[in-house]
């Protein structure tokens, strides 16, 4: 078990270094940060001096080595754009993104699950067909468009919900802020959460439906029916329970991508999360923030995958038996 964990951890470190290397090479194609850092009056000599002092003229591997060394100590430097420590900037923005991701993930799971079960049980119902057709919108319309559409209907025309921002937030401790405790904060969360969760919701719904249909055909369900169990006990007690394992796995893995792909939703709704921070940093070629953000996203994925692997190891006896067999 310990050997397995160590092996996994080592692999994770390699993945992180690889991500750092790839992103670092990409930064060379984003442009010149010095140009956005100085005014148009700055002379070429001044620009060169700034480039020198930032170490941008050093060979790329030297810059990379320095970055890895600092990153290992959790030190990402000062943002070229906002002049604040990068770690602090990201930590300040992270609660907004995590809150949005969790709420929309929860929404997607609950609504997706209910609709999936409903459409599986009432396969030929009119309502099911409407839901299935409607779910195509969630899959095919780009997030950007959905967001703008929702803003138009609910903020501009009906004026029920705010079009942008996070509303009032309450600080909890030094590092966390939440909008869930204020009325305006909850209102502001509705539209972005729906926009971000719509795709996952339709995904989960279709997955649950397909799994349910599969399970409902199996012998043990037929047997349960033959025994005269109530429809409710069969559908929820046996069928649904057996569809949940893959659904939970997918939902867990999707949480990572919700955090990573919140960028578009955050941009449309001006949501002050890390995604919006990243986009603004790309425009400015704010290399320290971009690097730290990509490392953070890589870390989220690595940690989630690590947990999933460990869970499999704990849950699935075959993995252990296999290893034990090989050892002999």
């Amino acid at each position: 078990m310990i050997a397995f964990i160590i092996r996994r951890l080592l692999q994770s470190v390699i993945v992180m270094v690889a991500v750092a290397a790839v992103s670092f090479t990409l930064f060379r194609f984003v442009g010149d940060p010095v140009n956005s850092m100085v005014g148009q009056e700055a002379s070429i000599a001044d620009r060169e001096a700034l480039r020198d002092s930032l170490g941008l003229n050093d060979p790329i591997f030297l810059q990379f080595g320095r970055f890895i060394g600092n990153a290992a100590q959790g030190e990402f430097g000062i943002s070229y754009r906002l002049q604040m420590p990068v770690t602090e900037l990201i930590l300040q923005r992270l609660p907004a993104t995590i809150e949005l991701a969790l709420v929309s993930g929860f929404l997607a799971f609950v609504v997706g699950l209910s609709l999936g079960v409903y459409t599986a049980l009432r396969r030929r119902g009119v309502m099911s067909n409407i839901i299935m057709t409607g779910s195509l919108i969630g899959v095919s319309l780009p997030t950007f468009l959905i967001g703008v559409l929702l803003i138009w209907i609910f903020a501009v025309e009906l004026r029920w919900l705010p079009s942008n921002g996070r509303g009032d937030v309450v600080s909890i401790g030094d590092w966390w802020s939440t909008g869930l405790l204020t009325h305006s904060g909850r209102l502001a969360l509705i539209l972005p959460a729906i926009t971000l969760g719509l795709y996952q919701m339709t995904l989960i719904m279709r997955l649950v439906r397909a799994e349910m249909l599969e399970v409902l055909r199996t012998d043990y369900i037929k047997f349960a029916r033959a025994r005269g169990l109530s429809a409710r006990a069969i559908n929820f007690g046996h069928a649904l329970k057996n569809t949940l394992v893959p659904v939970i796995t997918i939902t867990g893995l999707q949480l990572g991508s919700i955090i990573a792909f919140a960028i578009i939703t955050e941009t449309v709704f001006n949501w002050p999360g890390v995604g919006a921070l990243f986009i603004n940093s790309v425009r400015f070629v704010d290399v320290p923030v971009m690097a730290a953000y990509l490392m953070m996203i890589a870390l989220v994925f690595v940690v989630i995958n690590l947990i999933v692997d460990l869970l499999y190891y704990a849950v699935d006896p075959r993995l252990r038996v296999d290893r034990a067999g090989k050892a002999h």
Partner: protein
Amino acid sequence: MTKLARALTLSVSAAALALAAGAAQAETVRWARVADALTLDPHSQNEGPTLALLRHIYGTLVSRNVDGTLAPGLATDWQIHPDDPTIWVLTLREGVTFQDGAPFTAEDVVFSYERVLHESSGFRAIHADVVGAEAVDDYTVHVQMTGPSPLYPNNLTNFFIVDKDWAEANDVVAPQNFAAGEENYAVRNTNGTGPYQLVSRDPEVRTVLEAFDGYWGDAPQVTEVIYQPIPEAATRIAALLSGEVDFVQDVPVQDIARLEQTEGVQVVTGPENRNIFFAYDASSDTLRSSNVDDNPFSHPEIREAMALALDRDAIMQVVMRGQSQPSAAPLPPFVNGWTEEMHEYSAPDYERAAELVSSVYPDGFSVQLDCPNDRYLNDEAICQATVGMLGRIGIDVTLNSQTRSLHFPLIENWETDFYMLGWGVPTFDSAYVFNFLVHTREGSYGAYNGGRYSNPEVDAMIESIATMTDLDERNAVIAQIWDQVMEDRVFLNVHNQLLAYAVRDGLNIDVHPENSPTLWTVTVD
């Protein structure tokens, strides 16, 4: 029914607003624009949104009116020293206090000079001719220049004054140094003499300012300012339409007509201090991107043909939807040196232009046009239109449009043959254009002279106007330089940008040529 209901709601809320305003005399303006100030340090970033926000907190010695003229600020008077033309004598306003209560005196101005001239300052180049400042008494400062600089007060409109004791107490005697890796106290804390003081700031989310009761000028009608950057254009406009913000500064050209039709919202437009032009390399022997062996731009015929082919009115009507002032003059109209003659342009003559091109290159030629796509109003679309126009006269142009951080280094490093650039003139004088765009690139000159234009006679004239004290004589030389530059067709100017602000009804705001609105001058109906 719904219309009626909405009208009713509107009038009720308007009445409620009026009541509230009457009761507390408090007026809040929620101000949205595309980007946030990068820092609150007054001497760190010479950048539009940063200057616009800081202007509300920090005072300047001289300020700029909406029509481009100078007005007294913290200095009530500025004169050239009667005995020494290299010294500017600044008379300071008495009775001004900083927001922490400290009095404003000459020593603060001297200290601000030291700070703005520091190595890590972003404004060093603007004060490049300053040797140093000296306090003569509490309200008089002598600024020693390297030579006579008759127009130097124009450079004072973005020079913010900080309190010496405050800066020393908080260890911010120098602006942020990026390489040091530490955050400067002044990045998030302020102490100015301006009409507003900082209440709270969450970078890129919200900055709240309230009127400073110790302000030396008239108390502003707008007592609270909430500044919110909203980068996404559709969201920004939606926030205005839904009543969540009162004032949107960066209105996309395509939304102007619709906003003008919208009840409760008005659009104000005005010329910006920024002209958009093309420039090309006419000096090199060959081009990087052309299919011919010599340099097509070195032929006067080709340059003339390009000028004849550029349909500025079509660009104004189709691409800019009326939001531009077409002009052949490569400088904004309120800048000293601008003339009606330079501005005039003729209708395109494609036949004549095509003849000119085929007289040199019977089969035409190809070239690449480098263009930014996120810097100026509809920059990429202007380039696309131009590609089509030049295509009609036998010039096969490949468009390379990319983000600003990739585009500008091309000009800086001389890696482009033909490019678009927009230029603002913060000093409102032609010398600024000459220094950066016309003079041969050497030392601090010619940083944006991407076309490699080099004319020793013009260079000598440019250097001579820097120290001329007789303004009439100086203007004559400026006219001479422009004659030469226009004759050589160094620039192919397209237009001046217009700025559009959208505000809710009841707020009266002027469009500022430097796109730096002043909320303390806003009046409320």
